């Protein structure tokens, strides 16, 4: 493989991961506030279909993206209302919504099956795009991919560096403690669930108007991405940067499967297509290995200096879910 092929391939990895990144960030915000939005898989399909349909009918791509976000926000509103106001099980409500939205997307999208529609064009950035290697890798994408880069940074900045972000962490961790510090816990949960839902809703059009343009119904190949994004959120430790790496890793493994297919002819192509999934799980398990008890024991047996270094690394990698995830809050 020439260097150029590799760079183009990797640039493709960055672009094809961008839809997943929105979903991961959206889910991260929602879960950080304590609400699991399990509807994600259905939301992505419905917003992909809806976004495409709106863009096709209005011939306006931006409206298509906005429509996707609106759909995501509305589904999230249902999740929020059911779990925060009605205090119902987030898992049950989310799961039913995931199935309903998926089937709704297939049903309503029948008329748009295979219709050629608008597609977001690449927008190379002048000057930056001409830098060798880095240019083609980072600066010759479409707008939505650039936005995904910015979104990772902004989400990280918001959660870990701003005052409201700190409160967000608190709300998901111990709502009662956030409440005595002046937070309107349930209102904030609504806000973050809906904003997160809008981001998840951006994933659909990012597929259907950009990386996998068009609507192909059941063979669109979008079913399942929501579940992948959900697991990346969890293994990403509810951190947008780590989550983004998970999304890139997944896209990279998928690309690797395609590249290796002609080389490894004796391996059935199905194996290479499926391989990213178990590999993903394995990698994510490795990342979270610091949580295991036997690791702690091994650490205890190590000499002092080595132990310090390793436990620091493990502590940095370790992630625990927001303690109040899925737990309704009522001020006394």
């Amino acid at each position, binding site marked *: 493989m020439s260097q150029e092929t590799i760079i183009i391939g990797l640039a493709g990895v960055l672009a094809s991961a961008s839809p997943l990144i929105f979903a991961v960030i959206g889910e991260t915000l929602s879960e950080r506030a304590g609400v699991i939005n399990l509807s994600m898989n259905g939301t992505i399909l419905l917003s992909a279909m809806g976004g495409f349909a709106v863009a096709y009918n209005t011939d306006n791509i931006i409206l298509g993206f906005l429509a996707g976000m609106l759909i995501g926000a509305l589904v999230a509103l249902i999740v929020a209302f059911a779990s925060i106001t009605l205090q119902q099980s987030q898992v049950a409500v989310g799961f039913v919504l995931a199935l309903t939205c998926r089937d709704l997307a297939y049903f309503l999208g029948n008329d748009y099956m295979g219709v050629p529609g608008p597609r977001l064009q690449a927008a190379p950035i002048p000057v930056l795009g001409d830098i060798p290697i880095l240019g083609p890798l980072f600066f010759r994408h479409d707008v939505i991919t650039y936005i995904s880069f910015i979104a990772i940074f902004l989400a990280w900045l918001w959660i870990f560096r701003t005052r409201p972000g700190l409160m967000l962490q608190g709300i998901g961790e111990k709502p009662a*403690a956030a409440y005595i510090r002046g937070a309107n816990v349930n209102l904030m949960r609504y806000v973050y669930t809906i904003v997160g839902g809008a981001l998840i809703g951006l994933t659909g059009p990012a597929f259907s108007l950009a990386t996998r343009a068009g609507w192909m119904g059941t063979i669109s190949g979008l079913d399942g991405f929501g579940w992948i994004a959900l697991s990346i959120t969890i293994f990403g430790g509810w951190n947008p940067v780590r989550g983004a790496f998970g999304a890139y890793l997944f896209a990279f493994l998928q690309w690797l499967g395609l590249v290796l297919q002609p080389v490894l002819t004796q391996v059935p192509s199905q194996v290479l297509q499926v391989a990213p999934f178990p590999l993903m799980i394995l990698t994510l398990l490795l990342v979270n290995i610091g949580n295991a008890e036997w690791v702690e024991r091994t650490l205890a047996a190590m000499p002092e200096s080595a132990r310090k270094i390793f436990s620091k690394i493990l502590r940095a990698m370790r992630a625990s879910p927001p303690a109040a995830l899925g737990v309704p809050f009522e001020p006394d």
Partner: protein
Amino acid sequence: MNVELKNIHKHFGTVYANKGINLNIPAGTIQGILGENGAGKSTLMKILSGFIQADPGGEIILDGSPVIIHSPADAIHDGIGMLHQDPLDFPPMRILDNFLLGQSGGLFPNRNAVALDFKRLADQFDFSLDPDSYVDALTVGERQQLEIIRLLWMGARVLILDEPTTGISSLQKAKLFATLKILAEQGKTIIFVSHKLEDVEHLCHQVAVLRAGEMVGETRTPYVTSKLVEMMFGKAITLGARQPGEAGDVVISMKDISLEDVRLRIKNVNLDIRAGEVIGLAGMEGSGQGMFIRACAGLVRPVGGRIQLKGQDLTGKTYHTFKRAGVNFLPAARLEEGLVPGLSLTDHFVLAEEPKGLFIDHAAGQKLAEERIRSFNIRGAPHSPVESLSGGNQQRAELALLQSPLSLVLLEHPTRGLDIESVIYIWSKLKERCKQGASIIFISSDLEEVLQYSDRVLVFFSGKVSEPLDAGRTTVEELGQLIGGKGWADMGEAHD
């Protein structure tokens, strides 16, 4: 700040938690609020700190002007900060983030400036807290310290402390008391809520006693202990004399037991415990006593040595084998590890019984529950979910769940957070077990309890274990020194 409560009522359904309470606390005073569990202390403090609102008609007056407090955020705005019994902080986050959280200001907090403020406040009270470390690495006492300086930084001029001495070491308690005295001298108003007479007597300038939701008396230093007890319970109560157990045959025998986890190593403990004997484990939290008692329960596997129970070798066996051999363990976290929240008392008693067939015999379960509730004096109905019971009644329920007969009862903080009446009751039940031939090993941070009820005491200090001390010939002072790490050299024969 002067705090005045006027005619505070609060009812839940038909029950009055507070009934016409009047209280006047001048600035610079340390006010004790004394009362047994369920006397209405917490309700009163929740009203003052904005968690709940009093029934209409009452008044809260700060420095002469009446205020209405709708929420905890309102309260801190008015200068009232509350330290909760379970610290309301965020364990997986850094200390500095905990400190910052809830502060108003711009979008991006200036961490360096805040860290300086933090250091200045921490130094003022001689707290050694590293702003970059995580809260889950702190002890309860250190988390209190963090919360105190946070509330002061937020502008608290009235500090409410709810049972602050539960679960902290005696050294931390001394530091806490010193801090509160400094604050009172600065003109802050301190409200110290406790059921522990000795803490209140030691610290407070004046004391108000609550019983069954009513203010039954106010008094100032010097205090007469028996008077306070009578006010609290409506009758006189004493611990009574020590009752040393009568030792029978060796029940459990440990030879060269070694234990280790990430932080601690305990080496070569040798101990024989006889039937009817009570062994108290003393030491600062995390000195190894928790690991030791879990090894006795079969929950922690020793890395060396042998454990025998009545001649049966249990080394390396599982918890269930220990349990079948007659070892029962009651952990400190009653609702997390001991009981099942959501299940009723009847459910618990049925679950603890040897199963007979697939289906539950509800009538028999109900009868069993009623019988146990009566014999263990539990305030609750058979259908009450365990989490709705008070701490003392949860503990009684746990005792009622112990299997029979038993060889060894392991207890972690059996009376933590309970008032003296419950303490006496629980120990009377435990001593009954001893008479039936069971041995007891228990952990407590209350040194008087350790000396009152143990026959022998093991002191733990960062993994070191003392030789068994005769509880009848040891004083609280001696024990306190050993727990703090002093006087170990004189013991000579202490385990390394």
